[in-house]
């Protein structure tokens, strides 16, 4: 088996590490550095550039360079480089290929397995896209690991004997994560994780940038907000200024020839004091409070019981961060040994545990939690849209939970089990992971039939849902691979050969023809129609006559509406 490495695929910077010969070891890139800027671009001759070179190029060619792609992970937003458009997955994959190449060179052996860390608060889509990027880069992704858990692992390995509650506070380039863990007897138990996946150093840069742009406009009347190249340079300076202000009280920004005014080059010349910067960005730090509160509440721990607050991530170098934590929690935080590396090191530790490099009997053991609430949709309040929780968030995994439900109408003979992930009490505001029907329920008065629904959530993020009808013992279920993005996508092309396909061929054709014309349908109807069509095909492929019958009827009804039959 080849070696497994740990990768911290950050918003601003990416690091890789490995566990070998009994210790954590950083992997250096061809520039001899352990930190690689998370930048990808295409140079003037059309070649890909990654890392430091891409970052340097960003100043000159911002339109063909991408930075902070991680912020867009999990969306379909296209990123334009030069003339071509790329998905976030493709660009993350470029970055990971680069890591894979330099790691192979550094370790002198081919590297094709990885543990990749993501913010704890990344949702299912964002995790899936990270895995896809890894696979595109040629990795087998052994595990998606939560960043603060990784940081804690790295910390824990050095403090095996400790008994304490530790709050890991990770403010990086693009995301904020907070995790509470308990160390006891060499076991590291994650008690709760939370965060804000849209808050990081980048936001501090942007506020400062906006301030500089405003000042420049006040002084010269020129608005630079549309000038990509000027923006790239100001952003770069803004970040430099921010970093400098972590050590000194004021910083002088001077960007010569930022634009041309009245035929002569104008410069941006501005001095920013730390006090100014802190006032400007105070609001951002306040946004960290809510996730902290949630995590403490979920862990059932009060401020007084926390022993250490560990700071991870480059942005925690801003002195205001430690001050804010002291204010808010009354605890003086300490920096991790290497705030920028500890996540990658932790991922390497996890890789070592998985590959067997680290002997579990002698080393650290870790238990993690599921970051999101999982449940089914029920009709508790008559709205038909309640999120009924089966596994609450921040429960130690692996975990199995069973809840009992009853029918909600007299003589009800079927139940639709819909599985949702998310924190809203309204089911459809959450993310639907999958659904299935229980049919042939004996027709009895409301509440007389009972159903046990079980959720099993394992370490790899795979959720198995099953339902048993108590009166007949009938059982049905699905497997949802959350790490791979909800319901397993199924190849539905075989439906034509299935038994009974003839009956439904015309209906399916009509539906597909309608679906192929983009303007033919309102969006809502479109979704339902596509879903019903897929469900019908699935039922046909599985040879389930009853399901096919029901789905076919639904589809017919939808078609009637679509053809203007009204609702």
């Amino acid at each position, binding site marked *: 088996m080849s070696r497994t490495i740990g990768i911290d695929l950050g918003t601003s910077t990416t690091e890789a590490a490995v566990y070998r010969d009994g210790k954590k070891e950083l992997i250096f890139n061809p520039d001899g550095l352990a930190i690689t800027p998370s930048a990808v671009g295409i140079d003037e001759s059309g070649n890909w550039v990654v890392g430091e070179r891409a970052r340097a190029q960003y100043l000159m060619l911002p339109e063909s360079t991408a930075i902070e792609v991680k912020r867009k992970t999990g969306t379909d937003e296209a990123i334009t480089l030069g003339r071509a458009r790329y998905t976030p997955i493709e660009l993350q994959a470029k970055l990971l290929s680069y890591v894979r190449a330099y790691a192979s060179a550094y370790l002198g052996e081919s590297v094709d397995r990885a543990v990749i860390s993501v913010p704890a608060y990344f949702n299912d889509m964002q995790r899936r896209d990270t895995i896809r990027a890894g696979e595109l880069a040629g990795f087998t992704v052994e595990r998606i690991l939560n960043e603060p858990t990784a940081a804690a692992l790295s910390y824990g390995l050095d403090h095996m004997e400790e008994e304490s509650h530790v709050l890991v506070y990770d403010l990086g380039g693009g995301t904020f994560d907070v995790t509470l863990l308990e160390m006891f*007897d*060499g*076991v590291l138990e994650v008690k709760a994780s939370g965060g804000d996946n849209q808050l990081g150093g980048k936001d501090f840069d942007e506020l400062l940038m906006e301030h500089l742009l405003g000042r420049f406009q006040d002084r010269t009347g020129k608005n630079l907000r549309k000038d990509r190249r000027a923006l790239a340079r100001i952003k770069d300076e803004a970040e430099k200024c921010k970093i400098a202000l972590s050590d000194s009280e004021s910083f002088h920004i001077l960007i010569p020839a930022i634009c041309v005014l009245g035929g002569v080059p104008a410069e941006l010349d501005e001095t920013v004091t730390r006090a100014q910067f802190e006032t400007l960005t105070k609001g951002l730090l306040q946004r960290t409070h*809510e996730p902290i509160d949630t995590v403490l509440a979920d862990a059932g721990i009060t401020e007084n019981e926390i022993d250490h607050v560990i700071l991870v991530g480059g942005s925690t170098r801003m002195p205001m961060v430690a001050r804010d934590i002291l204010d808010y929690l009354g605890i003086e935080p300490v920096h991790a040994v290497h705030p920028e590396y500890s996540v990658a090191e932790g991922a390497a530790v996890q890789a070592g545990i998985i590959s067997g490099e680290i002997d*579990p*009997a002698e080393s650290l*053991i870790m*238990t993690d939690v599921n970051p999101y609430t999982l449940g089914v949709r029920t009709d508790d309040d008559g709205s038909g849209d309640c999120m009924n929780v089966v596994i609450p968030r921040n429960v130690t995994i692996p975990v199995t939970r069973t809840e009992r439900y009853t029918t909600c109408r007299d003589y009800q003979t079927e139940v639709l089990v819909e599985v949702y992930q998310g*924190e809203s009490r309204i089911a459809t505001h959450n993310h639907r992971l999958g659904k299935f029907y229980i049919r042939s329920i004996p027709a009895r008065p409301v509440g007389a039939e009972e159903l046990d629904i079980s959720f099993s959530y394992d*370490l790899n993020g795979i959720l198995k849902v099953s339902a048993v009808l108590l009166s007949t013992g009938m059982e049905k279920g699905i497997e949802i691979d959350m790490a791979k993005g909800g319901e397993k996508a199924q190849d539905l092309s075989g439906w034509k050969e299935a038994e009974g396909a003839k009956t439904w061929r015309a209906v399916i054709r009509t539906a597909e023809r309608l679906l192929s014309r983009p303007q033919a349908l309102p969006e809502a109807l479109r979704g339902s129609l596509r879903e019903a069509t897929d469900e019908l095909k699935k039922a046909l492929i599985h040879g389930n006559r009853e399901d096919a019958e029901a789905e076919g009827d639904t589809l017919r009804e939808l078609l009637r509406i679509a053809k203007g039959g009204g609702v």
Partner: protein
Amino acid sequence: MTEDVQRSYALLGLDPGAAPDEIKKAYFRLVRVHPPEKEPEEFQEIRRAYEMLKDGPPVVEEERFSAPEDPNVLCLLEQARRRSERKEYRAAADCVADALTFAPDHPFLLLLLARLQIRAGNPRKAANTAKKLQKCAPDFSEAYALAANGYYASGWYKKAFPEYKKAYELGYRDFDFLTDYADAADDNGACELAAMLRRELLKNTKWDQSNIDSALYLYRSEAEHCKDESAVLAFLEEYGQFLSANRRLLRGQSVELAAPLMFFAVEKPQLLGFPSVYSKIDTLAESLERIVRDMEPDFVENVRIFMLFTSLRMDSDFSDSDWPLLAQVVLNPNEDGRMTRYGLLDTLLCLLKEREQSLAQLEAIRSQYPFFYQHIKEYCGVFYRDKAEEQFEKLKREHARLSEQYAGGQFYKRYPEEKTLPRGVLAYSDSKPFVRETKKPGRNDPCPCGSGLKFKRCCLGKGIYD
């Protein structure tokens, strides 16, 4: 101790009743032996056991009575226990009732039966059983609490009340019991007592995940006892403190948090007609905001708006004015933007007609209802401007145009003379253009239609002024 708990101790290799830190040690030691990575099944077993025991061993009720020795009874009790573990309380109660035939009026069985009957949703029977229990154990407080609970749940509030009293006197202090007792006191007109009980509960309880909902319920009930401005102020102050102290526990709630406020607004709006009360509510809304935040982003805003309407309508300084109406239009805009605009103009014009008075009121709003002021300040410049007259005319013209499309409005109703004034470009009342009375205008004269253009560029050639 149930089998589950016993099994959990055994699984962790502990004797029943082991101390919390022993439980923790045992768990963490076993996690090493069965790490989740390698043995997920075993790990889950251990974890389940740990979660069952980690907050200290389950409280084993100190039982006052011991079970009869009769083997028939024991057999039936075993069945009852199994049934109730499966939550089949009715069947379990039947077993105990059977057991009573072997040991009539045995207090152990009566107590068990009454508890099961409550669980099974059979409160009347439970009350009867509890009454029997009182006969054989007259100083046993739970016997009265169960009777009270049974009567209350069957709707016999009068009968329940003395039972509650007696149980309380005998020292029964269960949390649910006390909340119910307070409700019962309310129902029986003993408001003072109810308030006292709730105070006691609110003061003495340590809130956690399991009882925080009741806290909200208690506050909601407290609100009903507020009779005047100072009582409301005191209530809001205390409620605000409760909200900020427990914001972590309260996260996830929304409607429930605003319930006391909504109660005031709907049931006792007259209590809100004081700027002092309103300003407290505004502060409270900020605490609410901290709890609810992005979960339901509009929720707090909507509550604030609703409270504002009520306060303005009830505040004697504003109740007769058009300001509440303006709030309605601005904060609750119609989907049709032009319609909203019309409403806005209509109200503004009415206010402008009484400019002196309105200006004074606007100043009061600025200091007492800052939230409202923030929303309307963009429209209120016209009250202050030196060129108010000119502005006024402009607004009137716009209003006149819109009034052709939208019915309703107070302005013309109150000031009918306004309706006949010419409005420039076109007379609003009929669409017939002006007829020339003077001499025909010259090509370069301003056009008589009032457009401001030269005649040759405007109406010349349309045959109007020939």
